[in-house]
């Protein structure tokens, strides 16, 4: 598929460029903050991958390559906003303040969630592709009914755009003018399938069929993603309805640690995207245009290493759930089959019967 121009404020080489509609509202320190976010998320993700290789996690879905898309979007959110991720939104979890250890619980197989979605205003991962888009629209309809000035953002991939639920979400979002931002990370691949298997034309066009704005942003440019998302969220909160953002980016690693991307994509493509690395891009910019000292970057690296080390300790010491805990939240109210099950299982695993 032909690449179409996307909103860009920073070239792959790290040069600031101007855009007719979007200015950069951040100062150097703030941009450095975004760099730090991205560097830490990348480092944590790297640690998680190696924990998986060492048998400490059952699975991991690496985010490498998509850090700008996620940190740009995540930092554009207001604390009062709410977000609905899929399974790869580690960068968003970071921005929502969720401790990295919690991101890994699902992948270790000790939890179906991992954190308190109410506290962090960030839903637990949705695995069934597309489901969360409708749930997010519903949440946004709730905001409207509460008369609150909040917005919802939901995350999904290029592959997800083929699912009926995503289309229905666009429809409901539009008809109810819901305060929602549909944030699509087009990372070029849905497991082994290139975006051309989901669409003939750039995906942000989908919005045109529903009458709300669709926009493509350079998903490897954290400044552009930040500004585009911020405006979309502001619009949503102000009652202007949904926006579809296509963050054009790349999944640099495997789909998950179970995947073998060499079966379906060529090295040259991965190489091409390395030159567009989102973390390096903003670093180059900060060094070149703001003369930031190497020390600051080293400090971030050290901080990230430290966090990774902590994460490792936490994961290694993470206990398995009590078998009987499977009965704790299946229902909110008492249920006879749950009680029978609890009694039955207690005979095998011990515990109150």
């Amino acid at each position, binding site marked *: 598929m032909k690449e179409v121009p996307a909103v860009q404020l920073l070239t792959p080489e790290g040069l600031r460029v101007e855009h007719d509609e979007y200015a950069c509202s951040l100062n150097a320190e703030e941009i450095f903050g975004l760099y730090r976010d991205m560097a830490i998320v990348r480092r944590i993700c790297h640690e998680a991958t190696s924990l998986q290789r060492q048998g400490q996690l059952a699975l991991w879905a690496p985010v490498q390559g998509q850090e700008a898309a996620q940190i740009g979007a995540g930092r554009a959110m207001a604390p009062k906003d709410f977000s609905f991720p899929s399974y790869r939104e580690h960068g968003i979890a970071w921005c929502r303040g969720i401790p990295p250890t919690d991101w890994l619980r699902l992948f270790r197989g000790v939890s179906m969630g991992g954190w*308190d979605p109410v506290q962090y205003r960030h839903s637990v991962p949705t695995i069934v592709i597309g489901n969360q888009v*409708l*749930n997010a629209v*519903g949440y946004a309809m709730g905001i409207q*009914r509460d008369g609150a000035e909040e917005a919802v953002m939901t995350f999904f991939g290029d592959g997800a755009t083929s699912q009926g639920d995503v289309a229905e979400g666009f429809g409901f979002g539009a008809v109810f003018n819901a305060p929602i931002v549909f944030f699509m990370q087009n990372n070029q691949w849905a497991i082994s399938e290139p975006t051309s298997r989901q669409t003939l034309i750039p995906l942000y066009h989908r919005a045109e069929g529903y009458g709300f704005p669709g926009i493509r942003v350079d998903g490897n440019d954290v400044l552009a993603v930040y500004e585009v998302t911020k405006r979309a969220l502001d619009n949503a909160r102000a009652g202007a309805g949904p926006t579809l953002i296509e963050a054009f980016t790349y999944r640099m690693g495997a789909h998950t640690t179970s995947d073998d991307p060499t079966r379906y994509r060529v090295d040259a493509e991965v190489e091409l995207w390395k030159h567009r690395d989102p973390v390096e891009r903003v670093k180059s910019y900060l060094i070149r245009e703001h003369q930031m000292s190497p020390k600051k970057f080293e400090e971030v690296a050290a901080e990230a290493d430290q966090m990774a080390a902590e994460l490792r300790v936490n994961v290694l010491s993470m206990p398995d759930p009590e078998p009987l805990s499977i009965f704790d939240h299946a229902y909110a109210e008492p249920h006879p089959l749950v009680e029978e099950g609890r009694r039955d299982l207690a005979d095998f695993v011990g515990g109150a019967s």
Partner: protein
Amino acid sequence: MTSMTMAKALNEGLRRSLDRFPKALMIGEDIGKLGGVFRITDGLQKDFGEDRIIDSPLAESGLVGVGVGLAMRGFRPICEIQFDGFVYPAFDQIVSQVAKQHARTSGAYKMAMVIRIPFGGHIGAIEHHSESPESYFAHTAGLRVVSPSNPHDAYWMIQEAVACDDPVIFCEPKCRYWDKGDVDETNSGLSIWSAAVLREGSDVTLVTYGPSVKTALHVAEVAATEGRSLEVIDLRSVAPVDFATVVASVEKTGRLVVVSEAPSTASVAASVVATVTERAFYSLRAPALQVTGYHVPYPPSRIESHVMPNTDRILDAVDRVMEFES
């Protein structure tokens, strides 16, 4: 006591629920101005406004999926599926989100939702308008499934379903919508989770729910004229089943016949037979029998009364359980 149709009783029950819970709201196709194709929501939009009685775009996955988000926001969504056969587009949202969200979030989010489904046959409808999908939901951990059989139960059970913090699949026997009955608006009687012994008897326990309850009561009358005493139990809650009540009855009668319109394989009826047989094994004087829809798609309406569980087919099963061990 007021005499009213089940349709009216549901309407009144919904009205009371909307009054009681400011965060209860309804979403469904044509439930606003039209009042739903069965008029169950008649007048509700006028009284509670368009923000609470929401005419949904024509998408069942959509209307249940947004219901999930609304529930996460603290609302109590009451979703209306227009006909049984149209719940399947929402199946994924129901099984993957509605049923599991509470467990997945360790209780952070209650799915205090009701999904109303007019179900079952006998209204002379075309295809997809006479399905009995309750077994799919009964099989799904995380859901509850109930079905009222008369106006009084409809009035109270819909209110209990809305008040419940778990998701409730509320199966309305559409062929009984227009039947009248007394509603006691001051006293609910049994809890929604209890089965009701509607008629006492000593020879055979006849268990059913929803649309077949009226048929079962009629069968009991006919059987009585033949000198057979049938105990008729209305399950009311289809999942979980109130097995204590059913088992106690079978311990008394020694015989069980379970009736339902859905095909038997992997059904609620089969499950009732399996569990009751396990628990009342030594009380059973004959194998428990099922009278269900056949294992074929729902028939064309002109012959539905001939082939679905009817008086003849149920009486025959009663005869058969009586013949055993003779």
